[in-house]
């Protein structure tokens, strides 16, 4: 797999209000969206926090958009001191359901064992050839505040902190990310100047 260094330039409308305020043009999302057939039975699963812009963007062209906010459920689970594995009951979708799954930074908020469970579930839920896109934070972004990655014009992604969602962040090196996503096949990855990394994986 090639890892591409994506250029990051200041957008005229950028508003930088703190270390979490970040914008970039998402190459992984572009490839993800290009690969998905919008007709007639295209289905995407979004595991991110509820985000109006992303719902509107995706639901405009995909026949069925599935949303299951795993971040809020994980926060609730930890708050109530319940075992984390309980949240996986929410991902009760039939095998081979989805053309694509948007993980966002979910894996970054889970320990290795739980990531393993997540990957197995995603592998089962994906159709053969289906894609997963995920984001891994850079070293300088160690906030426990979960982010929404808000899709904007021309796939310009704005990182919007969700202060009501706080979860520990597990920093991982690229090799660890590739290992933990097995048996999914790595397709492409991109690293941006502010440290964010995007990965695209495929079910063969």
């Amino acid at each position, binding site marked *: *797999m*090639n*890892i*591409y*260094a*994506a*250029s990051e*330039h200041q957008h005229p409308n950028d508003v930088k209000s703190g270390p979490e305020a970040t914008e970039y*043009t998402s*190459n992984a999302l*572009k490839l993800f*969206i*290009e690969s*998905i057939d*919008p*007709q007639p039975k295209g289905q995407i699963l979004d595991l991110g*926090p*509820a*985000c*109006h*812009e992303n*719902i*509107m*963007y995706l*639901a*405009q*062209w995909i*026949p*069925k*958009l*599935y*949303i*299951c*906010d795993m971040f*809020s*459920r994980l926060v609730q689970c930890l708050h109530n001191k319940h075992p984390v594995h309980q949240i996986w009951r*929410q991902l009760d979708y039939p095998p081979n359901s989805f053309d694509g799954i948007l993980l966002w930074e979910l894996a970054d908020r889970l320990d290795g064992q739980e990531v393993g469970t997540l990957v197995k579930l995603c592998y089962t839920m994906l159709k053969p050839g289906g894609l997963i896109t995920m984001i891994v934070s*850079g*070293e300088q972004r160690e906030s426990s505040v979960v982010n*929404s990655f808000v*899709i*904007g*014009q*021309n*796939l310009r992604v704005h990182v*919007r902190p*969700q202060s*009501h969602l706080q979860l520990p962040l597990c920093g991982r*090196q*690229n*090799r660890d990310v590739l290992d933990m996503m097995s048996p999914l096949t790595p397709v492409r990855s*991109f*690293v941006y100047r502010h440290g964010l990394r995007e990965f695209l994986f495929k079910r063969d």
Partner: protein
Amino acid sequence: MFKKEKRTDNDFNSPADPVMTSDKTIIGEQITIEGAIRGKGDLVIEGSVKGRIEVETHHLTVGPKGKVESEIHASDVTISGKLIGNINAKGKVVITKEADFNGEIKARSISVEDGALLKAVIELSNRSDKKGFTVGKPEEKAPPVTKKEPLAPTSEASKGK
């Protein structure tokens, strides 16, 4: 049990309130209903309801304390409470940050606030069937994504952290 209220202009203080009928019915916090509800008028649920709800040309609101298990047919729907079931709306569905929704939504448009808890399937009736790379306002002569990014590929080892 039911309150029938005359609606004033001030009641329509949300963008999700497009219906301009004169009456609305409120199912209060202490009320539990099991069974179908059908009517011509706006409906606000602050209590518990289990059963089909049909207010085809009107606005249904599930208030912050409302708990609903239902198949809903309405013109517009606002959810601020807990709703399990499917929504078939001719107009807009608004999901506020207090909402906990589990089910399917078929609507012309949808609005979702950060903080809402969702497990949903969303089908918009006004889909474009096209993958656009723009949302919101038309793009102002932005360069194509692929021409600027990515830059030259680098090896995994050199970039890996």
